């Protein structure tokens, strides 16, 4: 004796936020029922386990039927099958595209390929996120990537319009797409301390300042590819370290400006040339894709770590970078002011964000 068929269909599709989250988290129906029972819905509504099971199965089925639409959120708004109030639609989409920080840190900067997808069970084991949920998140990344790849116009705006995501989530996806496209290395041990939001911030900086879109806003891939001309121009900055005079001049200007303003003045003075070489070398190498990938690790190794070992505070770093940038403008023989500003603006905000005390 068994219930062979059990369905409930409302004219307005009924969706319980809590159950939706359990589904998104990749729970099986039985596990979800257990969680719900522990949550105390039963006492609240005098329901039996049987009722709970029936309700959970039914909702899981509804979500499954909706999934196809969620993968193309624009369709959700003008499909006829489910009558869902707009605020509910927004909730469904937002939660479907939400991702776990732990998960995204594992995947960020990796190629969104079949190979990566195959490794998701390792990610699942490592993060404690169910494989099903990992797959959904991964597929979301991939789907967004594929769609915006072929679109013109600003990246964030495209994501927001195509996937009807709220602004913050659209920015996060822009970062994910940007990282995946440029294959930035984020998984190295030295980078482990950085959160996804740190990277997302840096991605925002890079997108806004270093891509083609920063100068021309109607090109394909404008926001996902770095501006090649700019990268080429960065080579010119080498003069700052190659020309001994210039380097010394630069150093003395910075020292004058910082004297007495920071506790780590001595360390700064001794390290100036190393630090400057580090930053300028990063700039000069960016034409090489391999070095682009190592951008963040280079920042950490060449700048953040030395400062850390000398116990600079964030304020010190800020002060130093401000004067380091500005002083170069005063150097008479330094002709590449525009490139320098464009470069250092991003470097400064990225380093400040990445500099955890």
């Amino acid at each position, binding site marked *: 004796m068994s219930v062979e068929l059990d369905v409930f269909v409302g004219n307005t599709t009924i969706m319980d936020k809590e159950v939706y989250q359990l589904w998104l988290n990749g729970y099986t129906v039985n596990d979800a029922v257990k969680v719900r029972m522990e949550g105390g819905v039963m006492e609240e*509504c005098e329901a039996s386990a049987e009722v709970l099971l029936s309700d959970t199965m039914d909702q899981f089925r509804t979500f499954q039927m909706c999934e196809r639409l969620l993968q193309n959120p624009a369709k959700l708004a003008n499909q006829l099958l489910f009558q869902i109030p707009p605020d509910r639609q927004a909730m469904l989409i937002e939660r479907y595209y939400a991702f776990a920080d732990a998960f995204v840190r594992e995947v960020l900067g990796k190629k969104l390929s079949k190979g990566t997808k195959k490794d998701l069970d390792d990610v699942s084991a490592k993060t404690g996120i169910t494989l099903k949920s990992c797959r959904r998140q991964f597929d979301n990344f991939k789907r967004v990537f594929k769609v915006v790849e072929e679109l013109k116009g600003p990246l964030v705006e495209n994501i927001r319009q195509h996937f009807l995501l709220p602004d913050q989530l659209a920015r996060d996806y822009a970062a994910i797409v940007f990282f995946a496209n440029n294959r930035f290395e984020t998984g190295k041990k030295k980078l482990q301390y950085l959160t996804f939001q740190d990277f997302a911030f840096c991605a925002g900086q890079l997108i806004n300042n270093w891509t083609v879109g920063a100068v021309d806003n109607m090109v394909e891939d404008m926001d996902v590819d770095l501006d090649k001309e700019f990268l080429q121009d960065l080579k010119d900055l080498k003069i700052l370290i190659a020309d001994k005079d210039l380097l010394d001049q630069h150093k003395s200007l910075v020292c004058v400006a910082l004297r007495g303003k920071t506790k780590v003045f001595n360390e700064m003075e001794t390290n100036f040339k190393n630090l400057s070489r580090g930053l300028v070398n990063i700039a000069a190498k960016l034409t090489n894709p391999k070095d682009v990938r190592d951008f963040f690790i280079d920042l950490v190794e060449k700048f953040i770590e030395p400062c850390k070992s000398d116990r600079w505070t964030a304020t010190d770093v800020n002060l130093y970078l401000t004067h380091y940038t500005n002083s170069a403008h005063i150097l008479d023989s330094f002709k590449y002011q525009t490139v320098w500003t464009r470069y250092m603006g991003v470097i400064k905000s990225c380093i400040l964000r990445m500099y955890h005390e």
Partner: protein
Amino acid sequence: MPGKLKAKVVAGRHLPVMDRASDLTDAFVEVKFGTTTFKTDVCPKSLNPQWNSEWFKFEVDDEDLQDEPLQITVLDHDTYSANDAIGKVYIDIDPLLCSEAATVISGWFPIYDTIHGIRGEINVLVKVDLFNDLNRFRQSSCGVKFFCTTSIPRCFRAVLIHGFVEELVVNEDPEYQWIDRIRTPRASNEARQRLISLMSGELQRKIGLKVLEMGGNAVVGYLQCFDLEGESGLVVRAIGTACTLDKISSTYTAAIVQNLSNSSPSKDMKEAGFGEEAPGVPLSSGPPTPLRAQTFSSFSPSKSYSRQSSSSDTELSLTPKTGMGSGGSAGKEAGPLKALLRQQTQSALEQREFPFFTLTGFPPAFLLHVGGVVSARSVKLLDRIHNPDEPETRDAWWEELRQEIKSHAKALGCHAVVGYSESTSICEEVCILSASGTAAILSSRFVQDGALDTDHRFEDVAPPACGFCHIPYDELNMPFPAQLTYCHCCRRHKVPDVLFTTIDVPTEANVTGKGCLIQARLCRTKKKGQGEGNATAISNLLPFLEYELHTQLLNKLKLRGMNALFGLRVQISVGDTMLLGLASATGVYLTALPSPGGIQIAGKTPNDITYEQHISNMQKKINDTIAKNKELYEINPPEFVEEVIGSPIPEPRQRSRLFRSHSESSDEVLELDLSHGKKDAFVLEIDDTDAIEDIHSLLTDAPTPPGFYSCNTEIMPGIYNWTSGLQMFTSVRVFRLSNANLTNQGLNKIFNDLCENLLKSLYFKLRSMVPCCLCHVNFIVAVPEDELIQVAVTAVAMSFDKDQSQENGRQSGDKTLMKAITENEEQLQFPLELSAESPSNPLSCAKGLSEVSGPLPSARAPSVDHSSFTDRCSSWIEQLRLKAHTIRRGSIKTMSSLEKASPVPEGRSRSLRSNRSCPGSSITVVKMTPLSFIPGAKIIKYLGIINMFFIRETTSLREEGGVSGFLHSFIAEVFAMVRAHVAALGGNAVVSYSMKECVFMENPNKNQAQCLINVSGDAVIFIRESELEATPSQTQSGNVQTSSNGEGT
């Protein structure tokens, strides 16, 4: 060529990928009407094609316009092989044939395929030009309006209610044609869908013709069903109530306001003199006679068929033979004038073959008295139909059943049957036909033509609110023993102790507290059988099934401390090895009826001490339950001063016995003490385990969780401040019995649990809407296969505002509630009704005279002398010989209510909980509800009837998520298609929505399943009251605004 149909295909979207290679589709569209087909160009390589075609024009007869649907097929062009069909859209263009309904159909329709479901959408524009308005009514019945709503639709008023219309058409079922062996399932399904669509159109046209013949212009309470008889054919049948309706227009409204003041004084005068319920008329109720008291009497097998005729109430079913000839048994209780009037009304009704009305809600003062439920069933063998392709045999079957209903009504002293419905249950070659309704006496106002109406208008003076509870039959010559008391409201007329009806709670009824859904559920095993033997076995089981259902209902009613049932619907479903019975109704406490006594249990073996103890425990439980229920449903009627005062009725403590027996345990006896006293009037005697089980099951009905109420009527008495929160839903469960050798008891428990658990799940699902009421809860039970029980529920959950209900609550509130909901009626109908009878209203009078040029008996069937019992008997015998078995039985229930003529409090609470508007969305939100109204909103236009039939089949059941996944998406698709059609008509809601049929078949081994669903409803445009409130100055001007808005849209 009286009509030109024009269609234009605009665009498609979300089409499926038909070409794997390119991941695209080369779509084009065929537009077909009748035998003419047009094609659009191919729109290559697009999933969102823009065809923007020219206008395709079809010049057709209006007859075809009514019968045929417009058929739109979307195909994928293939250069080398045959074009693949993507899917189809059938558009019923009937709404365009009515000048007052929709003018254009325009919108996105889901493209539907019977194998794949919805596959994208197509945007289509459809218009109809009717060439000659004058000619329009000749060959066809274009222009007759159809409504599923079983009351007078909101923006109309009834000028005349002509009465019953029915029609039945038969065709060969495409699924059983020889060609089905060689064609694809898709082709077969499509043939079926198309055929049913055609037959529905034809049926509607034929009914329309009958309506025109009767002088009407509309069918209200239109109920269409189809019977899948299998080999013998496919039957589509419909019943309805022909009416002459007037649209409430602005000019009208103005006239009414004037007339209102003019007409009322004269009315008052007349009321004093001649009014039926006027205080001046002395009660002439014959010499006091001791009354035999027996609560219920119905559900008895007719003599000729009952094998176990031990039941004493058998006689009752034969009451039709006692003095029914004159049809005058009714008129004796009041003055002679009244009797005369009534006879006139009656004669007006009697000229009709069947004075039946499918309405469940009535214009004020139309329903005078209610007798009780009448029902009849018969068992037929489908393989014995002589001429299966012709409708004659089925017509005769139904005719016979209707005659029986009519005679039952007569036995109750009633000349009409209201809340009438018909249904079937088919298993292999056995078919059970059922008909039921409520015997009633109606006012002549709406049934007679204008002249008569003017003459005897005084009879139509609004009776007191308790009027409908007063017994219509002659107290001295009662058709069945009943316990009568004086009405607790007016104290002048007799009322019965309980009242069962199939109608909605009348708006004017005084109800104490709240109501609740009451269900009786029963399963009976039967042996597998064939042909005649099987039919006989079923015939023999039926009366016992019904009797027990009835007992259960009555017990459960008493357990809730209530005294009346409304919306009673008894379903009997037949399977190979069992019969299922489900009776649903809404129990209420009618203030006019006496308070029900408690239930007392008596043991039969008094010596056994433990047994005694057991009994007393049980008794305590029952008493507790009753007390708890009274509190729950807020039943605390005003103490009624001892009714003996002034009562000519002696109160003998009488006991009458009802014997209950069923095939297995015929020794079981249920004794009922139906004495008149307030307490313990109802004795259940327990003498075997069955009875104990029964009582247990009484007590196992779980109470609804806090914050929930449920009913199967339109609205719940006692709740009135609805918010706009509305959720219509359909839930289906199929239960597999793995154990083949179940006892009746075991089966009962399973069935009972199935229903209870389903309800529990619904409450849980809808918990976010609390406080809320499930209204119009409609259960459909079926036995799709040997070991399967299928239960489908459609209902609407409506949330209400709790705080207000408590403030206003109780007595005076009772009325407000109903008024609040039916505020349209309050504002529009009531004054209109009054003006309608006033001769000073030229409009209504003229209408009455011109449109009813004499009552028209149905031309088809000559009236039958139904009073002749012998005739019927012999015809039965004849049928016996034809091996078609009939079982009949009339259930006769009674009720009462009393009503203080309390003025209607004006304090109508509106809850204007924000209705979420849907900015930016291109899709119209379409509300669906089984009710005839939308709380907090005004229906401003009826756009036409929605009547859709879909088949869905799959050969990849597992891939579609198993049976649940399959059915889930199918039901969602059906909703989507209904909404799309309504939106295309320009509407934003479906009212009186119902799922008539949900036939589900599966074959998991073959990975296959098939499902058929038939839904119907009325497409409407509504506007929120809040939007109307801009001009709250006068209600009347509000109405004017509304209708002009309607025209504007």
